[in-house]
């Protein structure tokens, strides 16, 4: 079977719609609830990014940190993350799941062992925030061998020369960071500028699917609907926090939000 990530983008091309990617943190606010959230939002989202909580996340802003610390406090372990994916995949096998996290978690688990468990549980792709190119060359090759999509990140500071090399070494999907920011920052760059950079990436290799993340919310998402895909993370994490604070059900509230997001790009 072809990689579900590739398949998803192909299907959406026919629909002429951008992919909606959501980011939630595994184990937020409990292992069970984060699974429920995945199940429920997968009715609207095309690809699910699942954050592996880490306690020194150098690229994450307040909302995702809050979610991650909450999950860690509840005692989540790496094996629980795999279990959540596995249980989700039992129900929705073809819905792509991408794990996103920091390299130390993979390093401690052992790269090979980590990939073995990714395969076993049904993980389709990996984003490793602090393993940039060219440091990620060996690991991304290992991923490819295991049929796991290693997703390269590109940012506004990426030089032209790097851009070409990174795209060349990337697999099927690329993640463009819209602006200089941690996650959860307000969109501080005009969509026009972001799209110019996006088009530069697409021009180098139109076949690679490029999604845009950082600063994407209900307010901003529609401005980018003519792209391959969009990632919403912090706003969802914030909604979980808000729901918990108001003693409401995060699963329902988050689903509502994701369904709205989907409408904005449909």
């Amino acid at each position, binding site marked *: 079977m072809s990689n579900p990530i590739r398949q998803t983008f192909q299907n959406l091309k026919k629909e002429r719609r951008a992919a909606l990617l959501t980011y939630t943190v595994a184990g937020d606010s409990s292992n069970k609830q984060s699974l429920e959230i995945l199940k429920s939002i997968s009715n609207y989202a095309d690809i699910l990014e699942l954050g592996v909580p*880490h*306690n*020194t*996340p*150098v*690229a*994450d*802003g307040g909302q995702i*940190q809050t979610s991650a*610390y909450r999950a*860690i406090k509840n005692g989540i*372990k*790496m094996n629980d993350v795999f279990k959540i994916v596995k249980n989700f995949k039992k129900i929705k096998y073809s819905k792509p799941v991408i794990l996103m996290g*920091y*390299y*130390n*978690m*993979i*390093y*401690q*688990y052992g790269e090979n062992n980590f990939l073995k468990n990714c395969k076993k549980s049904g993980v389709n792709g990996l984003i490793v*925030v*602090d*393993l*940039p*190119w*060219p*440091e990620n060359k060996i690991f991304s090759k290992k991923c490819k061998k295991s049929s796991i999509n290693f997703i390269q*990140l*590109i*940012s*506004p*500071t*990426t*030089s032209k020369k*790097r851009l070409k090399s990174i795209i060349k070494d990337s697999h099927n999907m690329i993640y463009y*960071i819209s602006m*200089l*920011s*941690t996650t959860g*920052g307000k969109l501080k760059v005009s969509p026009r500028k972001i799209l110019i950079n996006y088009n530069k990436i697409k021009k180098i290799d139109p076949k690679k699917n490029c999604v845009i993340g950082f600063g994407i919310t209900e307010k901003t998402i529609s401005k980018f609907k003519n792209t391959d895909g969009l990632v919403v993370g912090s706003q969802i994490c914030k909604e979980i926090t808000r729901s918990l604070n108001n003693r409401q059900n995060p699963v329902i509230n988050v689903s509502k939000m994701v369904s709205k997001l989907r409408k904005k790009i449909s």
Partner: protein
Amino acid sequence: MKLRKGIPVIDQGDKLGFWGGKFGGNFVPETLKKPIEDLEIQFNKLKRDKKFIKERDRYFKDWIGTPTRFIKLNNLTKYIGGAQIWSKVVSDANGGAHKIYNATVHCLLARRSGKKVIIGDTGAGYAGKMLSMAAKKFGLKCKIFMGAKDIKRQQPNVKAMKKNGADVIPVYSGSQTLVDAVSECMRYWVANCDTTAMCVGSTVGPAIFVRICGWSTSQISRELKVQLINEFGEVPKKLKLYNCVGGGSSSFGFWNEFMDYDKKQVEFIGVEAGGPAKSKRHAAPLTYGSKIGILHGAAQYVNQNNDGQIEETESISAGLDYPGISPLHCFLKDTKRARYTAASDEEALKAYQTVTKYENLRPSLEPSHAFSVAIKEAKKLSKDTIVVINSCGDAYKDKNILEKKLGKKYVKSN
């Protein structure tokens, strides 16, 4: 793994910035690749530029005040009755600690690259205080990230930073100490690296920061070597250099110039923070055999659980209260060039009492850790052994802690 002779240790990393093939590197978000590369190019060029070296040396001399004193601690030597005890009083430097060297160099680099703002982390508050001083001196705006717990326990330095016009930004995440301050500072840099320069307060962080910091603090051992030769006519045949190790900037700088000597002649002893005697927590990853992991962009020995979550540390000294350790020290440990051990909170306090009882010297809690081990070991050493302890900070910043733990009489006013 091998330490090479004739090449500065800071330049012994490989292309990707790894010492010994596995310590250090650049585990950073893509956004930081460019500013890090820019800084690498700038630093590699400037460190070979005679004009820049002259400029640095002028500020070191006229503004920081070089050399700091190298003194014999006669009373302590007599009291201990073993090796000769000497101290390099690095707290003589402008601002009161070694952190001034790195801060000055970073501000010089920032000014040359046209940056208007510089940011930095701090634990004990010295790195922040020095950065605020240097920023003021060179006309840069300054933001300091500091754990909320450290802000409480290191008030004198917080006041100094504010007086110098720096924004002190409290960090409430995690353990609210240095580790969280560094993380938050890096996050700020991710979001503002186009306009802002970052200074990492110790020999930690992505490889370039390790190198710049080690290069800067090496001033300490350059001075010491001259002072030793003036005093003894040569580098002594039995020399032991004791230094506390948090991130490792003061110890690295204290040793660098002696790296190529046989360790039988010049031994390096790094003292980490063992934490409260009764606590399982510590800040001594080298002493207690922590596993290699990634923290703040670099591979290093670091306190962590099986999953890879960084563990909380505990130490009476905010400056040593860090779960990781410089890749340079990991390298020196594994090549067996340096020896590492730890002193507990209680041992450091006791050493502080001993030193202040016998000498007109008032080491802060960080160097008190080094004094503790040096005092213990010096007893058993021959009279012709020269023990030198780097007194790299002054205890004024610790007055609240010392008062609480030891009573008022141990805290002379300043």
